[in-house]
């Protein structure tokens, strides 16, 4: 009996280790941008190409930058969560319309509702590269000094908003 204890123990430990590994999401790569200044951009706005939007416009405010596209399936899933967050008025949400076409992006907002104060239009995805975007939707929380404090890759959920985004926004709003 005793001589089985060690191999079975090792096996159980291995199963536990691999089991934990299975629950992790390999797409959640820690972003090197957290704690760093939000990369600079100046892009035309989605609704009005004559006007621009830049991360500098937001200095002094805590805000959320959400990367979205009309072709992105998960954005559809995320959209109600963003609409709720916008309605709550807890934090202003700005959009980065990533590699989209203008009529399609505008059509999406018209059909599904527009949670964004402004959406910047990143047609070729260059700003997306600067923000390390690789799996739309992505969401950033940026503080008053323009530093990225949180990044979510993949759709926001009600739980994440409640447990991560809102507490962080509150904390940053005080500071």
């Amino acid at each position: 009996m005793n001589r089985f204890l060690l191999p079975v123990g090792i096996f159980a430990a291995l199963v536990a280790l691999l089991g934990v590994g299975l629950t992790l999401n390999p797409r959640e790569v820690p972003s090197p941008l957290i704690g760093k200044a939000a990369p600079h951009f100046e892009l035309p706005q989605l609704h009005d190409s004559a006007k621009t939007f830049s991360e500098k416009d937001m200095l002094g405010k805590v805000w959320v930058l959400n990367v979205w596209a009309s072709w992105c399936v998960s954005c559809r899933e995320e959209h109600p969560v963003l609409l709720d967050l916008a309605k709550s008025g807890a934090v202003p949400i700005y959009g980065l319309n990533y590699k989209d076409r203008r009529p399609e992006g505008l059509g999406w907002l018209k059909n599904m509702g527009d949670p964004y104060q402004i959406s910047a239009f990143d047609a070729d995805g260059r700003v997306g590269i600067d923000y390390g975007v690789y799996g739309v939707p992505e969401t950033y929380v940026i503080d008053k000094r323009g530093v990225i404090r949180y990044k979510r890759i993949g759709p926001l959920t009600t739980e994440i908003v409640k447990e991560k985004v809102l507490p962080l926004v509150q904390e940053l709003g005080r500071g």
Partner: protein
Amino acid sequence: MAEPLVRALALAMLLAPGGWALAREAPPAAQDPVLEQRVMAISGELRCLVCQNQTIADSNAELAADLRKEVREKIRQGQSDREIIDFMVERYGDFVLYRPPFKATTLLLWLGPLLLLATGLTILFRRLAHPRVKGDVELTADERDRARRLLASKETGEG
């Protein structure tokens, strides 16, 4: 037989939540073969974050194509390989490197296999040096008798 299966799969894919639909056709390579070779060499060092087990050079994902374009432009601007790779690491982290750097957080990754090998060899050599079963086992008269009977029955094919 096959068709319902295909349909079921297609339906499952349609209904599956999430999904970062990003894959597209790879665009044709640019004209300059020397430049292109360098683009491919650098891209071969970078992981595509959409399909994580491919390099940017191998991947057909749209992001990989964009990043190859970015690499190409940076080469044209006269940046060194090092500068271009640093640019990617700044944005996507060490994970973007297909060959992870050797540093404190990756010690286990690099040394883990050696550690396992060393542990295995140690156990093996200990066992070889001090075998657990020592010498012959003395049988009692009863056991000897039983062994003889068992062997005999096997030879005659009875039991």
